[in-house]
């Protein structure tokens, strides 16, 4: 393979970080090496095409796989030697981590080839839809956003059934109960059926600039009012020098905008649907929430209406925001001294209390209104796979406790799905400032367990979220409607029409 500059840069970065963690070089030497290679990563971050920016560089890790797992892979996986399985996913931190790990820890041992295709989220949806419609089994393992679970409920195997019906292929001590219960329930389950294993949970967390808060005498917000007041104070003091009160992901027509809206909707007592299945995006609570978002927008850079999650990530990384409520998976990238101006300066804090909150039973379609919006996803085994057994072996390995832990510690921001990963000493060791930090994990666990918000699950949701809500909100946030009420009335009308179809 031809060595490109980019390849050499990445190798230099990987070697420098490994040497540092192994105690062979000083922090200064590591930073010097990383600085020399830093341009490539900064430039890559501007693309922002991936759902969550691939923020922190990957670390090469020792092939630390338990002996019983290696033996199982040889014995059970080895039966399928020569088989090729196909996976289609978005480029997210856990996907990238498993792609990096699979050769040494899976393919070389089993002889199974994993052909992993990484495409933008909308194309994942298109590919899975084509596969499901034609039932050809073009892909064996699908990556599903939590918003799609209702749509593909009949196109995947229930992993609990497979674990019991295929004991000869069962991973040693897989322990499905180790997955965090809220993730299984709200990301990987629709009705009574589990559609796959949770693999990723970007979840809304509160981060603030410790240096700015200290300098201005601000305290982490405990209420939404305080959060707004902090944003205003920072913006008033520092917007002139390029640091705004906060940043958003408000690109018109982009799913990111819908995600931001629900954060403020849910934290002000609103929900997308009421229990009778009617859209409630124009009720008083929803208007309060959306008005809150629009007020907050005044304390953001004007360019936020062109930022998706990638744009927002870069803006914080470049020091444009004093605080933000956004995806926890972005945090390790901000802590990366190679490409970030705010390494060690961003600090996670508990989410502010909701100003009001609608109970889940008062909302519709399994919607859970709470500030900690989750955008989780699952790996699912296709019902149409022609090599389902080999794919099942891979799926179990990829979502097993050890692989998940390795995915979290090699950097890149992969969030744990299992309690054992949160508790693993290797994860705890990484709770330090730097690329691939895990120092936000304790608060992430707290958010998953107590503050997680989940979007409605209905088959039309991908269309409603992106094509209606994000487009019309885009008009609203750029002055396309005379008032919030007018815009939200129109959104309600369109959402109700789409929901009925």
């Amino acid at each position: 393979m031809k060595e490109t500059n980019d390849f050499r840069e990445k190798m230099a970065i990987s070697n420098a970080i490994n040497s540092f963690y192994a105690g062979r070089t000083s922090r200064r030497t590591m930073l010097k090496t990383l600085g020399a290679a830093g341009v490539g990563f900064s430039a890559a971050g501007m693309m922002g095409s991936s759902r969550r920016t691939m923020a922190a560089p990957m670390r090469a890790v020792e092939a630390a796989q338990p002996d019983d797992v290696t033996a199982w892979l040889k014995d059970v996986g080895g039966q399928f030697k020569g088989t090729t399985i196909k996976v289609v996913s978005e480029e997210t931190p856990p996907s990238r981590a498993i792609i990096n790990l699979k050769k040494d820890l899976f393919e070389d041992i089993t002889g199974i080839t994993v052909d992993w295709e990484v495409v933008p989220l909308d194309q994942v949806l298109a590919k899975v839809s084509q596969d499901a419609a034609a039932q050809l089994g073009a892909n064996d393992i699908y990556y599903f956003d939590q918003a799609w679970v209702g749509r593909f409920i009949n196109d995947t195997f229930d992993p609990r059934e497979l674990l019991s019906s295929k004991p000869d292929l069962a991973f040693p001590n897989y322990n499905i109960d180790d997955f965090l219960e809220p993730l299984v329930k709200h990301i990987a389950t629709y009705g009574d059926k589990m559609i796959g294993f949770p693999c990723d949970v970007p979840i809304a967390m509160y981060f603030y600039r410790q240096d700015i808060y200290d300098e201005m005498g601000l305290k982490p917000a405990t209420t939404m009012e305080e959060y707004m007041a902090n944003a205003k104070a920072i913006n008033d003091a520092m917007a002139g020098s390029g640091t705004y009160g906060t940043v958003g992901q408000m690109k018109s027509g982009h799913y990111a905008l819908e995600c931001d809206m629900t954060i403020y909707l849910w934290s002000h007592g609103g929900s997308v649907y009421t229990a009778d299945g009617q859209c409630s995006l124009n009720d008083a609570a929803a208007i309060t929430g959306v008005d809150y978002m629009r007020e907050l927008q005044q304390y953001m850079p004007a360019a936020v209406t062109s930022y998706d999650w990638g744009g927002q990530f870069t803006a914080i990384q470049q020091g444009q925001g004093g605080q933000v409520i956004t995806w926890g998976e972005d945090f390790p990238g901000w802590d990366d001294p190679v490409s970030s101006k705010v390494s060690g300066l961003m600090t996670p804090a508990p989410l502010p209390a909701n100003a009001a909150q609608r109970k889940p039973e008062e909302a519709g379609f399994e919607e859970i209104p709470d500030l900690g919006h989750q955008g989780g996803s699952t790996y699912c085994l296709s019902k149409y796979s022609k090599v389902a057994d080999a794919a099942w072996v891979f799926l179990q390995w990829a979502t097993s406790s050890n692989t998940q832990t390795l995915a979290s510690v090699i950097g890149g921001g992969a969030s744990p799905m299992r309690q054992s990963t949160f508790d693993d000493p290797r994860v705890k060791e990484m709770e330090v400032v730097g690329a691939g930090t895990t120092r936000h994990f304790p608060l992430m666990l707290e958010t998953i367990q107590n503050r997680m918000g989940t979007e409605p699950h209905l088959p039309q949701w991908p269309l409603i979220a992106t094509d209606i809500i994000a487009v019309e909100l885009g008009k609203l946030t750029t002055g396309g409607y005379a008032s919030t009420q007018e815009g939200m009335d129109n959104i309600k009308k369109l959402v109700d029409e789409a929901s009925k179809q």
Partner: protein
Amino acid sequence: MENPDSSAEQFPTILPPPVAGSLPTRTGVARERAWPWLLPMVFLLLAIGIYPLIFNIWNSFREFNPMKGRVEPVGLENWQRLFTDPRAFDSIKTTFIYVLSALIIEFILGLAIAALLNSGPWGSGLWQSMLILPMVVPPTVAAVMFKVLENPDYGPLSYYLMKMGITSMQEPLLGGNGKYAMQAVLIPDIWQWTPFFILILLAGMKALPTEPLEAAKVDGANAWQSFFGVTLPMLRPMIAVAVLFRLVDLIKVFDYIYVLTSGGPGTKTEVLSYYDYQRNFATIEWGYGSVLGLVILVIAIVVANVYVKVFKVQW
């Protein structure tokens, strides 16, 4: 002159006698015998050109049902929807605004720069070579490049536009209320495709006969009069070709919109091809997506034919 009959006798295996009832071609091979040689290309054309078109037409009468995970026949539903979909009409309107703006600006700039280069300024050869560079950049890459250049916080283009008082931090090129969203997507298009006009028109100018220009000069015409009265009319065939190529290409514009604005804010820059893409990939409405794809095809054919008729394009 040699008798054709004696020639046939001389090369009997190469030039077989014509089949009765068919017209001999220049080489003496009957038209019917050309078919075996054409068949591979005909199959290729059918496979990559005709089949997708027929499939698209067929698909426009079906739709993906997300509840069942299957594509089902829906009759004329998708076509009826087209006529009641305000977003489709808005996107057609936006497409025409985009096409006309880009075409006019690129043509005028291209013509002016070609005339300048034709006058033989210093380094004109170098400039001509460099003009090819924007065109070899993939449009998506150009769009990403301009996304950086137009960023209101660190983009140099945005910086200078603000310095000149054209845009502001509140209303930047990208972002804000989207006042300049259309301009933001037009800029990379103009940067990338103006050289296309320059190169074609420059080649045309260089190929023009010099006598009419010399005659105009003798008659006392100044440079402007020569250019508009002699050069421009003689360039008509080249202009026609260049405009037609760009016209058809612009109707399909997608990359700049996708990367820079995703059709927003709201639907301000949502052109038909982007709207079609959204139906096919974001909302998985393949049937309606096929309808919109066919609409793009029809628009391209109609516009191109109208252009040829109205401007009396002669090939």
